[in-house]
């Protein structure tokens, strides 16, 4: 079984893979008529990425049946880094040969570069996202979140994220002092808040930063969904696809 997809921009695909790489180094894509999907957890089981690129994103999309493709994302990135601006990307994968072929063609069609990547043995892993319900939701500008996370990192490894009906608050406490960022509902950075009560949880800045940074080049806004002391869901709206993350909260008390 094989699959072929031509994307207008190699850069865009490269950015998507960077966003996936924030969670996993090795991933199994499930590919069918609708598109390519990947759900994966990091080795520490703290974060999860739910990625989908639908066939509508492609200029050409051919897929017979359903297949799985496991690749080392960091190896794939090495190839994608060779892409120049304006180059288109064609991915083709043959399940029998276990090879992924990347073809980069420049805008004028005068140069064609072909990279072949050996794929890996598929290991069965988690393929469904946990079912969670959230008490609060906020749609926020991604740069504001990125800055808030970075600022918190000055004093601590953890940040307490609070969503209340009026604002989204990032609070970090450390030996050095505290850092607080308040994004008010009235402000320009907050597009929407849906919350009846205040909810909060603590998250690792390391994980937040790893995820928000690459995703910020793909989307201008992020939808944060949260319940008290429960995992946070970060959804980055992308055209013809899905990019969502879950991050587990820190265990309180003990």
């Amino acid at each position, binding site marked *: 079984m094989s699959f072929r997809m031509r994307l207008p921009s190699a850069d865009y695909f490269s950015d998507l893979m960077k966003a996936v790489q924030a969670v996993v180094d090795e991933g199994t894509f499930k590919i069918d008529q609708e598109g390519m999907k990947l759900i994966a957890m990091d080795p520490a089981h703290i974060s999860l990425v739910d990625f989908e690129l639908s066939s509508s994103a492609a200029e050409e999309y051919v897929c017979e049946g359903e297949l799985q493709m496991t690749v080392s994302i960091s190896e794939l990135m090495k190839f994608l880094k060779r892409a120049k601006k304006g180059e288109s990307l064609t991915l083709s994968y043959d399940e029998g040969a276990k090879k992924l072929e990347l073809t980069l063609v420049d805008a004028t069609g005068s140069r064609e570069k072909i990279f072949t990547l050996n794929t890996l043995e598929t290991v069965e892993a988690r393929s469904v996202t946990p079912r969670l319900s959230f008490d609060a939701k906020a749609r926020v500008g991604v740069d504001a979140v990125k800055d808030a996370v970075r600022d918190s990192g000055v004093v601590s490894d953890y940040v307490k994220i609070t969503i209340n009906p009026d604002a989204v608050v990032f609070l970090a406490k450390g030996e050095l002092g505290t850092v607080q960022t308040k994004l008010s509902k009235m402000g320009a950075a907050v597009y929407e808040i849906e919350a009846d009560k205040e909810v909060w949880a603590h998250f690792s800045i390391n994980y937040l930063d790893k995820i928000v940074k690459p995703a910020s080049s793909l989307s201008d806004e992020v939808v944060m969904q949260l319940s008290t002391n*429960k995992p946070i869901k970060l959804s980055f709206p992308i055209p013809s696809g899905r990019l969502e993350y*879950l991050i587990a909260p820190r265990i309180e008390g003990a």
Partner: protein
Amino acid sequence: MAELWVEKYRPKKVSEVVGNHDSVKAFVEWMKSWELGKPSKKAVLLYGPAGVGKTSLVLAYAREHGYDVVEVNASDWRNEERMKMVVGESSLQATLDGTTKKIILVDEVDGIAGREDAGGLSALRKIIDNTRTPIALVANNPWDPRLASIRDRCLMLQFRRLRKSEVIKRLKEIALAEGIKVTDAALKKLAERSEGDLRSAINDLQAIASGRKVVDVDAVEALGERNRVREIFQALRIIFNTKSLRAARAALEGLEIDLDMVYAWLIDNVPEQIPNPEELAEAYEALAKADLFLAKASREQKWKLTRYAIPLMTGGVALARRTKPHGFVKFTFPSKIRLMQKSRAERELRHSIASKIAGKLHLSSAKAITHMLPYISFIMSRGDEYAKAMASYFEFTSSETKYLAGEGGEVEVAKVAVEKKRKRTRRTKRR
């Protein structure tokens, strides 16, 4: 490729774990104590030979009680950074399902060493101190000196080789499920071969069962001998007989004994194996240099230095020996280890006494032994009310009191020494 039976028939519930009932029970109780929020120790160290169900127990418990297992295997990088990133972070976070039901499983802890895993163990030690999630460590050899500080922080659960009857019973169940007929004699043979290692027994059964419906003794015997771990004697034979540095260095490969132990074997056997004094001096010189590296490696936790120690202690000795003794000289068991084994009970007793004294008097236990033990021992030996008050103050157990009071202990030794001296002085006087 067909599914491995060891995976297919891995226990799915704790009750399906074969053998080692006491340790299994203790593990379940320890997990219960975590659920109640008051664990006695934050980590557990499951130790024992391969294939007896250490990892299986953890996985079975997780599966039965709906725990998420974060696994760190020997195939992963386990240096300080990775350890902190995966185990450290995971030990403080809840699961993605929003619960806290998580177990961290670090397999082959005794394999965390060498330059690839620099700092891994000390990072693990700190993680255990701060963890909010149960951590299960698995090791074949927990007595490696590098694991000392980890051991103190763990509930130690020993797993023994499984009984032949236990192995046979499990093999029978698997054969039945797979629809294979295995003769009783073949089962017995498989169990014997496995030496209590159920995993290897199941692997053997799968290997010979492929393509046949009936397994008999002949089929088992066709498997040949299992390639077991190389023994220290083999390694010594290579070191003392080879003339090449490469071969000597390779002698330690596949040896599941720590370097200090190998060193003890070498230093005790060198004089018998190398008759020529000049060559012996050369060999000792090499060993002395190796010792410097080993000492520095263990003192400063710089295990990468062992790569200088190994060629010196193996190759150095091998190349020093140019003449052979006549006939076969057998290897002797290192006296240091024999002595340590003999005095182990006493050392443990002394250690426990010292830590009690240290705790009450705010001393280090080393100081407690050198500065306090002789005096306390002297007072205790009188057996009067002061001795009793002393014992109750330090909360000594009866065996500790007895040891301090001098039954075979400190005072006895001192007495003998004094006696000897007296005799000697008398003798000189007579002259």
